[in-house]
């Protein structure tokens, strides 16, 4: 096959097409016809998706252990000791999965944006940034070197910054972008330190070279060093994936255009932390304590965000907290060493959360920019397509049996429980509670937006119909959300050849054994699954009934539990805490540092010296005043010393 020789070119093409789109849209963002930007942006991502799709098909035809393509784009950095850093890319089942999600969901969101951003004056800039993001994200998932991964890692952070603050005339939006970048930087600093530790030990940052090395250490140093590395890298993931305690930036990030929230802050970038840990699962599976910590952070975040989501009134903020919560589930999965389950949930979440955001965007679009849930309602009649697709997505995230979210969430819950330790039982229970809360807040959201009466008369009835480029992505994503479970059906439901296909696909990259469901615990799995679905179905129907019978039940509940309600409404006062604990003291300290040390301290004493020097020079009456003279004096003085020295030398 001649095309086989073109594989390295194709990988590079997949990466460079969005970059090319960025360059074209960016350089000509004021000269091209407006219509072109969207199609250039969307087309480049679509072509990139085709390239990766074809490559994935090639991958599937190969024997399982050999499934990997590599290509190098040259050397970047070299060191006095240790392996140089190459721009090396690898296309293996894990990067294939990620690349398909990034370009596939990305393509749909680009397409949607054509309609969504049609009226915006910065549309060229918008598509340029969106394409740059796609390229950076692809670099992140294709990188075979942790430093190259870091380039993508910070690159997506940059695009996130630029797109959150896309409408920069609004100071608040610009502020949100800055906050996202800085909070991410805190995590990135930890990530960098992790890289330094790795390099200090093994003198390489290449993932391929490192894979066999993780286990090379003697048991004594292994534990401490590996734990430190794993924790530091996880610090980066905490920032990027908005886990506790660095979760504060993601809700604010909703200031960006809604398709951006769908692509960057739901489907792809925020899952980079999960991807990174799965990519390094050989390392993480060696340090159970760190894994437990990750699971703990994940489940606490899931619970924290789900409770906050119950009370928020901004449609996008509810979805943002929902994203944080779902990411918590993924971290629970990687912490429980269910790496394949984490990726499975990552994929289905990309489908249904992107759909939720795009649906929310359509609603906001139809209501001329309204974000407040309390002012929505009755959208069922007004926008039936949005209604139906959003319903699918809501049922999927709740985990109604048969839909993709059900399978992926269940797989996580089951794999957590089946570890059999008391810690895992505790995390399972907490995760179950978080899942139950998901049902409640999603039904609340859904009710407020689509059901009941319209709570606000929108200005006129001039609302425009949605163009096809916005409805098509909704429909495709709804299908994917509904049937995405096929990717990784549990053994309980499927014959051998169809079960756990994604897990099998990923298996060459996941160390140790993939915990396929054995025959014996099938019953246990069935019971656990039944319990979870019972909770999901029961709670969501109960909540829906309550809303339909007594629409004001949440208000009375809020009154009854006022302190708790305020705690949740204010997001546990986390932002205020950071402001009070870090931001203000830092600003105050810096100001006094400048005023005291520089202005009064150093300068004060130096000016004192200056006065002395000036008086001295006046006394010497060599010069009357002025600076050049004192400089000349100094030079003369220097020359004099030299002359005397030479003279003394010669006398000898």
């Amino acid at each position, binding site marked *: 096959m001649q095309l086989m020789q073109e594989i390295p070119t194709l990988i590079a093409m997949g990466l460079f097409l969005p970059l090319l789109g960025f360059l074209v849209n960016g350089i000509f963002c004021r000269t091209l016809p407006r219509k072109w930007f969207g199609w250039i942006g969307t087309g480049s991502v679509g072509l990139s998706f085709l390239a990766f799709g074809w490559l994935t098909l090639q991958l599937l035809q190969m024997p399982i252990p050999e499934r990997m393509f590599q290509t190098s784009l040259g050397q970047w950095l070299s060191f006095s000791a240790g392996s140089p850093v190459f721009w090396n890319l690898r296309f293996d089942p894990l990067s294939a999965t990620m690349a398909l999600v990034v370009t596939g969901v990305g393509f749909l969101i680009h397409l949607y944006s054509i309609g969504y951003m049609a009226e915006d004056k910065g549309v060229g800039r918008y598509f340029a940034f969106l394409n740059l993001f796609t390229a950076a994200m692809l670099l992140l998932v294709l990188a075979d070197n942790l*430093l190259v991964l870091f380039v993508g890692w910070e690159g997506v952070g940059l695009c996130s910054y630029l797109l959150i*603050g896309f409408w920069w005339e609004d100071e608040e939006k*610009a502020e949100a972008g800055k906050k996202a*970048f800085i909070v991410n930087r805190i995590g990135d600093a930890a990530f960098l330190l992790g890289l330094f530790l790795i390099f200090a030990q093994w003198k390489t940052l290449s993932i391929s070279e490192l894979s066999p090395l993780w286990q090379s250490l003697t048991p004594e140093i292994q534990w401490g060093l590996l734990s430190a590395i794993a924790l530091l890298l996880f610090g980066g993931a905490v920032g990027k994936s908005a886990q506790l305690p660095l979760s504060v930036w993601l809700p604010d990030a909703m200031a960006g255009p809604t398709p951006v929230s769908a692509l960057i802050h739901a489907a792809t970038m925020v899952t980079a932390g999960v991807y990174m840990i799965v990519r390094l699962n050989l390392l993480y599976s060696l340090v159970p304590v760190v894994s437990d910590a990750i699971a703990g952070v994940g489940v606490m975040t899931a619970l924290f965000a789900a409770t906050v989501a119950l009370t928020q009134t901004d449609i996008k903020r509810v979805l943002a907290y929902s994203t944080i919560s779902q990411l918590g589930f993924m971290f629970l999965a990687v912490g429980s060493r269910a790496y394949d389950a984490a990726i499975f949930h990552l994929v289905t979440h990309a489908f249904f959360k992107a759909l939720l955001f795009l649906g929310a965007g359509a609603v906001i679009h139809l209501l001329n920019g309204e974000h407040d849930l309390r002012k929505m309602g009755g959208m069922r009649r007004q926008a039936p397509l949005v209604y139906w697709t959003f319903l699918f997505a809501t049922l999927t995230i709740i985990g109604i049996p048969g839909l993709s979210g059900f399978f992926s969430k269940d797989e996580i819950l089951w794999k957590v429980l089946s570890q059999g330790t008391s810690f895992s039982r505790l995390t399972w229970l907490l995760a179950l509670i978080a899942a139950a809360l998901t049902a409640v807040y999603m039904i609340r959201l859904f009710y407020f937006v689509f059901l009941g009466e319209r709570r606000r008369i929108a200005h006129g009835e001039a609302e425009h119909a949605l163009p096809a480029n916005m409805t098509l992505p909704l429909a495709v994503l709804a299908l994917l959300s509904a049937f995405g479970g096929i990717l990784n059906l549990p053994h309980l439901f499927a014959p051998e050849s169809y079960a756990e296909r994604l897990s099998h696909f990923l298996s060459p990259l996941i160390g140790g054994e993939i915990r396929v469901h054995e025959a014996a615990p099938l019953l246990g799995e069935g019971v656990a699954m039944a319990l979870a679905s019972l909770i999901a179905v029961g709670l969501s129907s109960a909540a829906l009934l309550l809303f339909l019978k007594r629409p004001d039940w949440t208000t009375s509940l809020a009154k009854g539990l006022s302190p708790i309600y305020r705690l949740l409404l204010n997001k546990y006062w986390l932002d205020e805490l950071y402001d009070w604990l870090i931001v203000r003291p830092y600003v105050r300290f*810096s100001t006094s540092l400048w005023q005291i040390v*520089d202005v009064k301290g*150093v300068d004060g004493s*130096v000016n004192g010296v200056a006065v002395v020097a000036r008086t001295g020079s006046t006394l010497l009456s060599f010069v009357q005043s002025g*600076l050049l003279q004192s400089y000349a004096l*100094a030079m003369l003085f220097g020359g004099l010393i030299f002359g005397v020295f030479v003279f003394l030398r010669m006398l000898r």
Partner: protein
Amino acid sequence: MKFSPTFLATLLVLVPFVGGIALLFVPARQTRFIWIGAIFTGAVEVFLGGVLYALFDGTSHAIQFAHRVEWIPQLGASWFVGIDGISLFLVLLTAFLVFISLIYASCSISQNVKMFALFFLWLEGAMIGAFVALDILLVYIFWEMMLVPMYFLIGVWGGDRRIYATYKFVLYTVVGGLLMLAGILYVVYMHEAQFGVLTTNLLDLYKTQIPVAEGWKNPQLLAFLAFFLAFAIKIPLFPFHTWLPDAHVEAPTVGSVILAGILLKMGAYGLIRFSIPLFPEAAVELSFWLMALGLVGILYGAMVSMVQPDLKKLIAYSSISHMGFVVLGIASLNETAIQGGLYQMLSHGVSTGALFLAVGCIYTRCHTRIIAKLGGLSGAIPLFATFFLILVLSSIGLPGTNGFVGEFLILLGTFQTHKWFAAAAVLGIVLGAVYMLQMFQRVMYGKLQTHGEGGDLNWRERAALGLLVAFVFLMGLYPRPILEKMTASVSHLARHYSDYQLSLYGEDIAK
């Protein structure tokens, strides 16, 4: 072995002086002709720099293009210049930045043009001279010679408080220079005592064993400190830095570019070229304290930057932070870190030089540099906004820009020997993002505060900033052409600083 013409280094020093003197004969009213002449001289220098780069043999750490002419035989002093992997890129940076500054100045300086061009070319010659001189007396002369034109640049074309600023600048540097002179004399004296020859040839002086003793009466330590103070003021290291913000604020834009871009590098270059190889034991002994000073500079500069009301002061303090990284890397004595330090010097020269140009562009449009009075410029001058954003990102050290490569190498190298220093310095990367992004937001985002005049960048501003921005990416994505040619020299220094010797190119191969 490549062809290594001996006259090239000398030529690089002389061309700006010759160009400057030639301009003396042009009538002062012919400003257009003066600019053309000055820019042409700058272009010739860049061209010579390109030839220099092409002919430079990166596999050798020896001094190339060496040129030696007897000057004061009684003293053993000579015109002795040459280039190795450490000075090569500083020379190129100087030629490049001066060229760009001249382009920019031709549309921003309108008074005393002839004098300006003269001083600027004089400054260029002196700076290149200081980088290529291998006779310690010659180094000292060039070192002091740089001060005069800089003094006039600030004093004549500067802002309102320029007299105070020049006073402070001159006072600081002269004190440092005198101490260095004392140190030089001591080293020359010790060399004569040991070898019986009076010479100021740096390569011979390297062979001198400066005595070491316990405690504070350690001669090597004192000599090290005498040199060090001069360098610390130039870099500038905390707490010797307060002349810098004042000098920057009062200096004209191109003065700031050269000050931040090249003069600050003199100090760090001095550490590499003189302090460490001449006084290796003291360097090792003080390594911890130097790194500590570097670290304090990183954090202090970053913190104080954040609360500056004036754009130029903010960037001046950010220079203190970035140069702190350079000192941290050099003082760690780790090969990768020194290389990173050298690289950071170059990338700081490019991006901070460019940032000062950008501030100049803002000032010519809005007539203020006070951050609180600016805002929303992104919409008014979009092309400028793009360039400015890229420069801010480079200053933050975003991977893919030049800022990342240097900082990464410094931190990676430092981490190998001093984990906690590197760990604390990483904090500087976070704080860097805080003050730069805050500044960018206040100046460029939000509602438009002052309506600028003159519109977006004119073609000279485009050329100047565009070239620098191109180097931001070039150095960030493809650092190999630079790293390759400096590696041999850096690794020679890192491995042999305790008995440092430099030979002339050709001689080492003959042996």
